[in-house]
């Protein structure tokens, strides 16, 4: 059996006295798309942010491709180039053009030449459909375009897996589709994806597996047809009913 892309072992996270993650164990195989759903405050974003150590776990292990990144001797910057991350608020760099956003880490971290970085960047912008905005500043792009640029920025580093932290929650409803389409095509191309989302439709269509979290633990996990259609637990049923009523 091959090493899982992401493996989380007995993960605990405290914010002060508050235990946000109460012992998480799970793994994602290469090429798998896993959606994490659950009520807000359930710890799903914190879990995602532990995977690239934006949040330092209080205890437990996070293995990326078999390497324990909680080990202080691991070069976390190097590991992060292998893990793309997309944020709810896009977090594009407002002082750089779209092209600048896509090239800066390639040049500074991967030591690519400017020309090489720009070629890669244009390819990725092409792929997410915003190549015409290359020379604009992020502020001149719509929310949907900004989020697609953010995805392209991650892709430029050639990541083996992508983390999505509620990527469509800050978007106007009519712009959600274009971002989900890009994510769908990534999934089709075999990208390993861990997605925190409230888009149940997307989870049903695209996810290989859905994880339902509540109150810092994984309550239920399985194929979307089970977890999202016929949940075994009361908590999951209640949550899905509430989401459906929205």
């Amino acid at each position: 059996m091959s090493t899982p892309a992401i493996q989380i072992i007995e993960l605990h996270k405290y914010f002060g006295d508050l235990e946000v993650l109460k012992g998480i164990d799970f793994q994602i195989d290469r090429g798998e798309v896993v959606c994490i759903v659950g009520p807000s405050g359930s710890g799903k974003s914190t879990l995602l942010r532990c995977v690239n150590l934006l949040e330092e776990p209080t205890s437990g292990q996070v293995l990326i491709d078999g390497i324990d990144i909680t080990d202080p001797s691991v070069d976390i910057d190097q590991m992060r180039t292998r893990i793309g991350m997309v944020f709810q608020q896009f977090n594009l760099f407002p002082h750089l053009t779209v092209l600048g956003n896509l090239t800066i880490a390639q040049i500074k971290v991967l030591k690519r030449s400017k020309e090489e970085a720009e070629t890669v960047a244009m390819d990725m912008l092409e792929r997410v459909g915003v190549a015409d905005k290359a020379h604009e500043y992020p502020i001149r792009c719509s929310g949907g375009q900004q989020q697609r640029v953010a995805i392209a920025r991650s892709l430029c580093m050639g990541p083996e897996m992508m983390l999505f932290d509620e990527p469509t929650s800050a978007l106007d409803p009519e712009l959600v589709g274009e971002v989900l389409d890009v994510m769908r095509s990534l999934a089709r191309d075999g990208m390993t994806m861990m997605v925190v989302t409230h888009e149940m439709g997307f989870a049903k269509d695209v996810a290989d597996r859905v994880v339902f979290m509540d109150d810092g633990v994984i309550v239920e996990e399985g194929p979307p047809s089970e977890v999202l259609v016929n949940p075994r637990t009361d908590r999951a049923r209640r949550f899905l009913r509430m989401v459906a009523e929205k």
Partner: protein
Amino acid sequence: MATRKRRVGPWSLGTVVAWLITIFVVAMLAIVADWERIGHHFFNLEVAEAMLPQLLTVAARNTVIYTIASFCIGFVLALMLALMRLSSFGPARAFALAYIELFRGLPALVTLILLAFGIPIAFSLRIPGGSMGAAVTGLSIVAGAYMAETIRGGIEAVPRGQMEAARSLGMSHGRTMFSIILPQAFRIMIPPLTNEFVLLIKDTSLFYVVGSTPATRELVKFARDFMSDRRNATPLTVIAVVYLLITLPLTYLVRRLEARVGKGR
């Protein structure tokens, strides 16, 4: 007519009375004042002419040089202090805090005198550049303390997500600071830093306390020498104009700069 009514609007009774009183007071002062003596003591062309060319080639030049030197050294100091203040290393934070509190609290005059006279006496150590070197060092130290807080404020005003996005692309903390955070913080810092610079221009007038030679005089010292020489206040009026000739183009340039770097917003 509605338009006329609106135009009349601001001229309420109170405003009209206030204006009438102001005009009356100004007119009275203008009539009572002795214009000839004012002219002789404050706007004496003969005295003003005598100040040239040294006014520009020595005094104004020195003021500008001292200001720019203090600002640049102070800025580098401030940047280091601000980064220490935000560091996760406790002793660095404590040092920066103590430094900032101390040199913001002390009058700049005291710092200058301590540096120019105290250190040479205490450690028989001379600061390079003579007394003006000591003065520039002293003012840089003070400016550093003030600007450190400006820079820290600017850095903290950049949203957290910027650091997270850059780090998740594999950029190190330091690289993110210099390539992502500081360029954005700089925009926020331009207005307060301009303020700092303008204040520094005027703080160089404290340099006389460390003792300046004719060649190292800045504007205020230069004017004071002339005033006691000629028993005339015109040099004050002249240097007031020179100060404005320095600050006004500067603030204009900064506004242009602000507009230029603001285009991504």
